[in-house]
């Protein structure tokens, strides 16, 4: 056989190597897409904010800062615990404790977020009472929906973690879920800084 038409060995090796990377590649693309959606929401926020004379508009009370700041710490901590879960899975150690802690932190975030919504709503800022309320509720609720779906992925992982299914050779699900969790946390930091702080 002519040597010239023999595909280089690297092509065959490359094929078997990239065949199994599908889940990660897919997740990166999914997260880019979600990122574009959030980018569009932040863009909308910037357009209405730059068009306003003052922000918050005159007569609107500023949003609370304490609980959201605490929440930022909660989410940062949860990102660390989820990372520990992923590292544990890679090393073949039990992951269920780390996943459980992460789930509790995520649930705590949602609880505190609920408190913030209720107190802001009681103070008279409603989604329909003006553009400030519209932006606040739309962005935070949309983010919270992603937190909830991230919590659901942990619920999906937990049964397997309990029976020790995840290990060095089988940590894809944990890794994908962790990627999504970190993504949601990064979005939160951007949201905390732009909606609450500045």
């Amino acid at each position, binding site marked *: 056989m002519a040597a010239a038409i023999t595909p280089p060995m690297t092509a065959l090796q*490359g094929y078997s190597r990239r065949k199994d990377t599908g889940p990660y590649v897919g997740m990166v693309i999914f997260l880019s897409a979600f990122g574009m959606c959030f980018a569009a929401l932040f863009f909308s926020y910037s357009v209405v904010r730059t068009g306003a004379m003052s922000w918050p508009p005159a007569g609107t009370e500023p949003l609370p800062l304490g609980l959201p700041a605490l929440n930022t710490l909660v989410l940062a901590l949860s990102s660390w615990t989820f990372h520990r879960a992923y590292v544990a899975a890679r090393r073949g150690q039990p992951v269920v404790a780390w996943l459980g802690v992460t789930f509790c932190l995520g649930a705590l975030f949602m609880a505190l977020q609920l408190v913030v919504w209720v107190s802001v709503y009681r103070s008279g800022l409603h989604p329909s009472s003006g*553009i400030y309320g519209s932006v606040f509720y739309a962005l935070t609720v949309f983010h919270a929906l992603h937190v909830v779906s991230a919590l659901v992925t942990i619920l999906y992982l937990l049964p397997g973690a309990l029976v020790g299914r995840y290990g060095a050779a089988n940590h894809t699900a944990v890794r994908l879920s962790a990627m999504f969790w970190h993504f949601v946390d990064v979005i939160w930091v951007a949201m905390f800084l732009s909606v609450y702080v500045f």
Partner: protein
Amino acid sequence: MSEHAAAHDEAHGEHGDHDIHPEPTSFLRKYVFSTDHKVIAKQFIWLGLIFMFIGGSMAMMIRWQLANPGEPFPILGKQIFSNSGGIVSPAAYTSLFTMHGTIMIFYAITPIMIGGFGNFCIPLMIGARDMVFPKLNAFSFWMMFVSTIILVISFFVPMGAAGAGWTTYPTLSTTMGTPGVGQTLWVVAIYCAGASTLMGAVNYITTVIVLRAPGMGYFQMPLTVWGLWLTAILNALFIPVLAAGMILLFLDRVVGTHFFLAGTMVKGGGDPILYQHLFWIFGHPEVYILILPGWGVVSDLLSFFSRKPAYGYKVTALAMSAVCVLSAVVYGHHMFTTGLSPLLGQGFMVLTMIISVPAEIFFLNWLHTLWKGKIRLTVPMLFALGLVFVFGLGGLTGLYLATISTDLYLHDTYFVVGHFHLTMAAAVFLGSFASIYFWFPKMFGRMTNPLLGKLHFWFSFIPINLIFCGMLYVGFGGMQRRLYDPSVYATFKHLLPVNQFISTSAYVLGFGSIFFSINFFYSMFYGAKAPQNPWEVTTLEWTNTTSPPPHHNYDVIPTVLRGAHEFGNPEFMKATGKDWLGQAEELPAAGAKAADKETAE
């Protein structure tokens, strides 16, 4: 046998054969809730063809009203427009043009070209057994199905279907302009269709990245796959922006937020123009999303049926990529008349004009591919040539709309309608049928009737040019789009005969689709049995598997040895006696060396 063959066996022993999933046997798993990309592709094509029929019928009603204003629509008018005695009422007219645009873009072109041929061609042409995420693929189709159900329901709610145009600008699209539930359902339906498209896009991109057969680098992929892959990338990045716009519009309509309602300066308010930004950040890439699969298919078909390598293959692929990158930064040319800063406007104008450079490059590559080729005028080739013609024509009219000074006059006239129909309706229409006629034998294992196909082509190609060139003409005469009855204005009265001419051409186009329907249904059951490679072309789905392919596509994953356009190489013609060489076809030892030398040059 050399070390190559040994490695070949090893690769398939390890990673090939245990990938074959058993074929499902129950009817539901096989034909309805299938995860097989070929079945899902057919489901998408069926859905797309049904909605193309509905959207096309709406176009006929619109044309009837423009040619015979105030006269009852014939035959079914009494049933469809029962409230107004068969006359297309102004409200019905508004819903008609809104739903015509929506259905054709999101429920006809997208399912046929992206859902259908994206699904069918990508795994087969790159030598894969299925998509990388088959369940996500099935979920994508059923999400689209849910979306169509919501859309169909919106026709039967009080105050009827959406009526704010397919672009759905606020404030017309807020509850002040269109209070009916139909508009809200429209928003939900588009959101679901977007979710479906996004799932498909993630699947396509990942599949092309990870499942290309051994030896198939990016620059050995057929240009069809390039077109579909670039489409998927644009979809993954820009459909979410539309989703954000739809979320905000939904909140404005249902929860009462103020994103698109201009407010007082003191209290702060939303901005109706914000929607246009969101919509066109998505919308301009979207027009390329619609035509890119067609470009890819045509780039391949011109080479296949000219029996010549695609001229400047790599350059065509890169030029299409350049168009994708540029398409993301030109959206402002849809907004020249919204009070956009002149400096920004000029920037957008220049960037828009720059798109014509890569577009010209691959257009000239197409013509070079044809030049001195042994052209076979098969039905798919006719449709491909038709696409080249109407796309060239439509592309040239784009220059007048990209230039601010002419756009100020032509904005919102029928010139715009003619322009975008030539580029993304006529061209995509012809591209869709080129694809359907070309891959029909592979899909159904039977040949289509060439005579009916050619009748369909001429009954499509001639009227489609008359219709849209007529629109350019009345648009240049100043006639605005979306007018219920232009003939009541003294300025446009003299355009009525032209409008009647356009409408008559449209009816001929509608009539032509009868040839397609007969051909499609008859050939599916009674067509001549298709051989494995009826077109004598080089890509994997024709050379390495049967027509139709088995459930797992390839018994052995082929090892790709060369690009997709090996035609007319005199050395391998000497070695094999035919003028084409499959992508995975090994040459007989004698002459192989010389042929490969030729290929390398």
